[in-house]
């Protein structure tokens, strides 16, 4: 994968707020008598990449959706820094693309984001370059490969210049080459000044990308640890057990 | 040519063809609504004579063809300016109740009993209409009735009563009420090989006769008088009284009566004008 030029998101993204970008306090989510998230509290730093790890059913996707404001917690709250209100973007594991061309998808997102008409073509070009999709601009979005669709979904989420981008298993079921492209794109997003949180089951990938790890276990936070320390020796019993189990496979 | 180049052009052509302004829909100029019977419309009489009236007066006559009973009800609701129907008693009741102004004799023809060519009930030899109906009832031969409170239906019921029979007892058996217009009833009669009472004009102009023919005619009881009445402006203030008066005047005039007499189908005269015979009724 050739290294691509990192373009700043234009106009400049929101200034880094003082302190945490986002604070979750006592998040509880219940469904049908089951407690899926059992009182989570944590802070997200204003920059860098946070990897969210944990076994299936730990509540990772649910937590992302709560952070994105797609569902309201039964208890507790997600407090965004005042500067970033309304600018959290989420890209699900299987992105939903409009039945339009790549260009059509991006222009639609730019329009919804309120980008003035005369500025849209410029922004469109930037996003296409960023995702390395310029050659595919006219192709129907749903005819793209899985990796291309994921990249399109990521830059489409950037249309409203989010301060925080949440990626739910962006490289699940992608081949190594596509995975590398997504990782490169993720780095560009961060370089452009956007905080990224991504869910993954791929520890190697988390180690490659993350500055910080949140380990989720049974709807609770087992630990929040800087990546370098986490991958050397997880602090929590759950993470250690999971890693060892994973290594045994 | 592929779909990509063809579709937009087709689509555009379709759109432009289909959505002219709504105002283009309604005809312009003065008009009156004539509530009339299916028999007069099916015979083609109006298409033959109304253009003559419109040509001399500029007044368009819009014909709504329903049964006599419904025509009178519609006019009572003020949805017609003039009615031409054929049920003397109902017409006089309509005028007496204040829904219509004066009633005039307009024209007449007669009713006939039609049936399958082999005449299974032996109606052809009957000496009177009542006898013909009795023959049908005796043979329990299928009979298709309008059953719709029309002028023809009222006449038919009167004939059954005169024959001392109550066909409704056999309703659903050999006596079949179609609840439809004259033409639809004739279609049903041909389909079921049933006898039917019809006005002569509708029968002559009816094109789906198969082997059916007129089996009984000529009884004075089968006389079919059409009357013309103007809706009463006292009941319906919106009645186009002036135009309606001119129309009735023309229909009763020498010119109108001649036009009615001149209308022929297959060489046969369908209606006989008799506007001059007014005195005997009032």
């Amino acid at each position, binding site marked *: 994968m050739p290294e691509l030029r990192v373009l700043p998101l234009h106009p400049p993204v929101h200034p880094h707020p003082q302190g945490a970008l986002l604070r979750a306090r006592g998040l509880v989510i219940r469904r049908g008598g089951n407690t899926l998230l059992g009182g989570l509290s944590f802070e997200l730093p204003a920059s860098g990449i946070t990897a969210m790890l944990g076994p299936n059913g730990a509540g990772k996707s649910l937590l992302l959706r709560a952070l994105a404001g797609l569902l309201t917690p039964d208890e507790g709250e997600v407090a965004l820094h005042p500067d970033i209100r309304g600018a959290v973007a989420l890209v*699900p594991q299987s992105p*939903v693309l*409009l039945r339009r061309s790549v260009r059509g998808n991006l222009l639609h997102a730019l329009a919804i984001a309120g980008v003035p008409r005369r500025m849209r073509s410029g922004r469109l070009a930037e996003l296409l370059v960023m995702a390395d999709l310029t050659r595919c601009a006219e192709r129907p979005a749903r005819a793209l490969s899985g990796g291309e669709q994921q990249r399109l979904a990521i830059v489409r989420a950037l249309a409203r210049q989010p301060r925080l981008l949440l990626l739910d298993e962006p490289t699940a079921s992608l081949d190594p080459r596509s995975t590398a492209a997504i990782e490169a794109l993720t780095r560009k997003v961060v370089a452009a000044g956007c905080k990224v949180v991504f869910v993954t089951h791929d520890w190697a990938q988390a180690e490659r990308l993350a500055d910080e790890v949140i380990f989720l276990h049974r709807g609770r936070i087992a630990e929040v640890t800087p990546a370098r320390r986490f991958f050397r020796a997880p602090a929590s019993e759950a993470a250690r057990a999971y890693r060892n189990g994973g290594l045994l496979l | 040519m592929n779909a990509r180049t063809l579709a937009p052009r087709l689509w555009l052509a379709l759109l432009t063809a289909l959505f002219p302004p709504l105002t283009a*829909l309604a005809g312009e100029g003065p008009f009156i609504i004539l509530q009339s019977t299916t028999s007069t419309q099916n015979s083609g009489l109006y298409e033959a004579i109304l253009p003559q009236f419109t040509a001399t007066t500029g007044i368009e006559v819009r014909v*709504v063809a329903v049964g006599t009973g419904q025509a009178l009800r519609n006019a009572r*609701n003020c949805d017609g300016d003039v009615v031409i129907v054929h049920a003397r008693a109902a017409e006089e009741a309509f005028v007496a109740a204040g829904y219509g102004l004066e009633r005039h004799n307009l024209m007449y023809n007669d009713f006939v009993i039609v049936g399958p060519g082999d005449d299974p009930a032996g109606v052809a030899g009957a000496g009177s209409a009542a006898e013909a109906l009795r023959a049908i009832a005796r043979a329990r031969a299928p009979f298709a009735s309008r059953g719709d409170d029309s002028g023809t239906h009222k006449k038919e019921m009167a004939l059954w009563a005169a024959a001392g029979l109550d066909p409704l007892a056999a309703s659903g058996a050999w006596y079949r009420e179609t609840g439809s217009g004259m*033409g639809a009833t004739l279609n049903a009669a041909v389909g079921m090989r049933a006898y039917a009472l019809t006005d002569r004009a509708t029968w002559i102009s009816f094109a789906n006769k198969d082997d059916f023919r007129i089996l009984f005619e000529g009884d004075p009881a089968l006389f079919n008088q059409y009357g013309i009445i103007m809706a009463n402006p006292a009941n319906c203030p919106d009645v186009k009284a002036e135009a309606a008066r001119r129309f009735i005047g023309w229909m009763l005039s020498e010119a109108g009566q001649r036009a009615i007499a001149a209308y022929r189908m297959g060489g046969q005269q369908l209606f006989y004008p008799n506007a001059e015979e007014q005195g005997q009724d009032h």
Partner: protein
Amino acid sequence: MSEGFAQAFRMIAGLDRELFEIILLSIRVSFTAVLLALLVALPFAAVLAVGRFPGRRGLIVLVNAMMGLPPVVVGLALYLLFSRSGPLGVLELLYTPTAMIIAQMVLVIPIVTAISRQVIADMHAEYDEMLRTLGASRIQMLGTVLWEARSALMTVALAGLGRALSEVGAVMIVGGNINHVTRVMTTAVALETSRGNLGLALALGLILLVLSLLVNTAVALLRSEWREAAHA
């Protein structure tokens, strides 16, 4: 019978003025009715599909049930409404094409609402979270969903058009089948049938069918183009 077909063929070949007047009126009345019905039904369907308010389920059941509304009953109800002695008599709409358009709208709105509600609900379920994360307002969301569903909604409109074009009971009552004014294909078929001109009646029916085929073909071409844009 064959005589009737021959007559119909002569009328078409000779560009019979009266025949074309009738065809054109059919097209105008039904297309206008469907267009106006869509303007009412689509927003209504969208609200039923996406909105959450008390009585919504009851409304959906009601709309679905209204699909079975007999045209004659609609015609009768509108006759009572538009009759000069009725509550809306002053509008003088009875026996006009406008009354026929309204009657067909009443018949088309339930079918279009019921089916497009389902279409929109499915499409909305697919797009809801995505559009919310992109920051779409409710209006933008509905606009996007309606546009993305346009191919399916076009089929819904065709179903509505089918109901409008083929309907005879209601337009007969409120239109009166007046020659040159409110006579459309279906009432002309009814009239020719009652005159015993079965061949001609059938031929008129075939013209109606050809008309329907043309419209459906045009829509099919349009849809194939859309599909190409969406899926290559």
